[in-house]
């Protein structure tokens, strides 16, 4: 057994252990609601995965040596694909008669924190609902981080894997060691979830609902477990809490790390945080003005609140409809539609291009105009007060370009199934992991995408994965050198 395979198996076995343990709450809940068949399948699955994880980790001995990036990529892909397939099993065997493609879509949507469904989520048995929310929660923080935090030999291997896993370019390096950073991220994530649960309970939400909401909302997955009309009918304090935590989920985690370490002074330079706040406030203001202008007869404060909640929902790529935004003026929707592309911050649970890259893109434009006027200048682009290498800027720009290429091609192939506007909207919804489109999608049946062919559903599954893993890890599958064995160098 080569060290590459040992490495992969080591990560995978730990992932399986965590997976098995995370299934247990759903089993207990199913038992509580006397959904025995459901509980049995999940229990058996959980025991199987956990024991196989244990056995594998007993059998192999990992010395934590360095392996090449190729192995990191394959490890991540193997882990993701295995977990997604395993997560689909409880849905498939739930006795509700779901087709395999549908359950696969569902599992992927949950893992990638996309708020889209092909089956009516809110009609699911309680155990499965919790399972889906758990998947959302784990998908948000990234299974690998979860795995790595409790892995024995992670300190040697963590950094490159984390780079692949955490969405976004991650420019703000937190002022801490890597090991501490991991633990802190997990701690912050759990704390935020608990705080949200407590807040929702205080605001009067039922226990189960609060649990599901706090798990799905912090991971910016949307509120798929509730009927769309229930979401609109929620009370204002609950809506405000949901909005606040969706916002927390969509900002750079290093913000919280710095806060916890009481290093406020660094936050002054947090370009992404400033960008996010400005973006949200400006958009809200514009939309409020437009809404008041068109005279929809609501008080100013309420309009402001409604548009703020909706703007946060879409720009954090959570994608729930918390107010009646389908009746908004066209211009507002257009603005929001384009902002969904930018999406959340780097190192957050949200999707999209990420605001760090958007900031770089804006600077690129300004810089390229400047270079045309002063061709011999040697200044470089700065980010958060520090100069950045041209290759980093170029790579960020390339990513944005690739994002649009995937978006257009996604829409191209989805158009085999639907009309042009829906194809564009759906492609955006999937690749940004939002799950819904501001403009609405035709063929949507009570919030679920039932009217699509298997090919279309599989394509959407792929798009969700591409968006969540930031395209390149999937793209390497098509590279010849990925499949070729590493050549031995002199080192």
């Amino acid at each position, binding site marked *: 057994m080569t060290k590459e395979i040992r490495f992969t198996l080591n990560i995978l076995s730990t992932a399986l252990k965590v997976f098995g343990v995370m299934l247990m709450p759903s089993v207990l809940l199913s038992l509580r609601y006397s959904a025995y068949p459901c509980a049995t399948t999940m229990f058996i699955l959980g025991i199987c995965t956990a024991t196989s994880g244990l056995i594998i980790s007993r059998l192999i001995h990992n010395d934590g040596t360095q392996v090449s990036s190729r192995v990191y990529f394959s490890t991540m892909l193997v882990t993701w694909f295995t977990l997604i397939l395993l997560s689909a099993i409880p849905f498939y065997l739930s006795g509700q008669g779901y087709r395999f493609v549908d359950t696969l879509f569902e599992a992927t949507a949950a893992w990638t924190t996309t708020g889209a469904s092909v089956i009516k989520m809110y009609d699911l048995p309680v155990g499965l609902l919790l399972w889906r929310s758990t998947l959302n929660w784990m998908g948000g923080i990234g299974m690998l981080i979860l795995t790595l935090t409790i892995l024995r030999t992670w300190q040697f291997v963590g950094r490159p894997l984390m780079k692949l896993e955490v969405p976004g370019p991650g420019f703000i390096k937190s002022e801490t060691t890597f090991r501490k950073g991991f633990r802190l991220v997990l701690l912050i994530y759990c704390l935020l979830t608990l705080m949200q649960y407590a807040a929702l309970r205080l605001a009067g939400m039922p226990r189960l609902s609060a649990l599901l909401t706090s798990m799905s909302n912090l991971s910016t997955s949307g509120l798929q477990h509730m009927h769309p009309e229930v979401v609109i009918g929620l009370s204002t304090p609950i809506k405000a809490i949901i909005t606040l935590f969706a916002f927390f989920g969509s900002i750079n985690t290093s913000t919280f790390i710095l806060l916890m370490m009481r290093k406020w002074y660094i936050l002054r330079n947090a370009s992404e945080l400033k960008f996010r706040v400005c973006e949200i406030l400006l958009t809200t203001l514009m939309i409020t003005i437009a809404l008041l202008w068109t005279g929809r007869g609501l008080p100013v404060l309420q309009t402001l609140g409604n548009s703020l909640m909706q703007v946060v929902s879409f720009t954090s790529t959570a994608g729930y409809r918390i107010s009646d935004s389908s009746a908004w003026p066209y211009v507002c929707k257009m603005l929001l539609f384009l902002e969904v592309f930018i999406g959340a911050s780097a190192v957050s649970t949200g999707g999209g291009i990420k605001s760090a890259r958007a900031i770089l893109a804006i600077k690129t434009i300004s810089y390229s105009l400047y270079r045309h*006027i002063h061709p011999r200048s040697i200044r470089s682009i*700065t980010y958060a007060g520090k100069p950045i290498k041209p290759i980093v800027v*170029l790579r960020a720009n390339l990513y944005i370009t690739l994002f649009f290429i995937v978006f257009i091609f996604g829409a191209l192939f989805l158009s085999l199934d639907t009309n042009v506007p829906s194809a564009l909207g759906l492609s955006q919804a999937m690749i940004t992991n939002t799950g819904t489109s501001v403009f609405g999608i035709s063929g949507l049946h009570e919030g679920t995408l039932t009217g699509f062919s298997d090919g279309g559903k599989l394509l959407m599954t792929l798009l969700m994965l591409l968006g969540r893993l930031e395209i390149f890890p999937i793209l390497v599958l098509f590279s010849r050198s990925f499949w070729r064995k590493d050549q031995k160098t002199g080192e």
Partner: protein
Amino acid sequence: MGKRVIGFFGIFLRLIGFSMLLPLVTALAYREYSSARAFVVAIVISLTPSILIVLSQKHSVNEAPLKMRDSYFIVAMAWIMASLLSAIPFLLVGSIANPIEAFFEMCSGYSTTGSTILTSVEELPRSLLLWRSETQWLGGMGIIVLVVAFLPDFGIKARTVASAETPGPTVTKLTSRFTGTAQRLYLLYLAFTLTLMTLLMFGGMSLYDALNHAFTTMATGGFSTYNDSIAHFHSPYITWVITVFMIIAGTNFNLFFDAAISGLRKMLADQELQLYLFLLGTVTALVTVNLLQHGEHGLFDTVTDAAFQVVTIITTTGFATADFDLWPAFSKMLLVLLMITGACSSSTAGGVKLVRVVTIFKMLRREVRMRLHDNIVDDVKLNHEKLGGETLTYIGSFVIVYISTLVVGIVLVSFGGSGDFVTDFTAVLTCISNVGPGLAKVGPTQNFHFYNDFAKFVLALIMVAGRLELTTFLILFSRHYWNPHKTYKH
């Protein structure tokens, strides 16, 4: 320096004035006296300042040469000025009463876009229609290139100015002096136009129609003298002749010289051309299959329609033989894709240009390799030549500027009153890539008339910006441009 700029505009105005002689003659030939009067007025307006400038500027040869920034200013201003002056006859005759609409129409002309606000083209006097087509022909190869090719040297570095106007990231020098290159390009352009005109007349077109369509085909413009465009002629011969010449117009013109000097094999070795031909073939095949699936009858007719529409969109011409807005969604999306890519650099087409598309894909391939192997050193090569980091950065930034212009354009145009996402998206896309028709309310059988003045004005500027490769035009809106001594800060 200021005198040189003024001197340039003197020559430039003379060019615009003289180019109006052709429609003037046409007006007299067809006895359209009110248009003739309008053209005379427009010629006088253009030539008077020109003559004044020439008279006042006799001894100004030893001026400082122009800086880079000034050449951008000259080019952008020249294009706007050309559009304004050329709009005068339309306003005087009253065919287009709204000045903004006239400006839109002429921007669409010079930028070889081919979008129109006219609900019925056939109602216009024939001389005005010819003028409309002629502006596309002038804009196709570049008005500034025309000036530097055939007018006396006046101290501007011809290549610098021309590079601000020529499609594509690089300007190839074929001869030792750039002026020589420009002359050759224009002569080739003229030769193709005349050949096409002759071939069209063999197909039964009148001299007038043939001239109009030859102008707009070679310029990849897309204005027609009929409401139903090329479909009016119901002739497969004309359709195919125009298809072939659109393909030629979308090819890098320098390659024809390459072919003449070193043979066809050299020409076909060009990677941009290979992608161009590959796209033409595949997309036509895909559209044909898609159309046949959706109940289109007759293989030959379907192939003809598919090939014509694919070619007309990828070369950013924008003629119509079929209402592709009624086609299945997959075909429409394919056309949208082609609107973005456009055809080859140094042709008369618009869009991102295939040379950039090729480079972007090569960069992406390098990126994947860089991520897979930590310490890899990998060059991006185009036609077996290594591309420098500077070029790659420029190409990367160009795409970002393109996407951003598109996005900002969509937001602005959404105030235009269409109320439909696909309409606004394709309207801005079609203008920035200089194609012509879009989808939905701006589809091939529709026009841009319903937009409000604000949206029309924005779209007109986007067309010019798209034709001038964005940066040349957008620089005028940069604060760095207007504050030359201010230091650069972020």
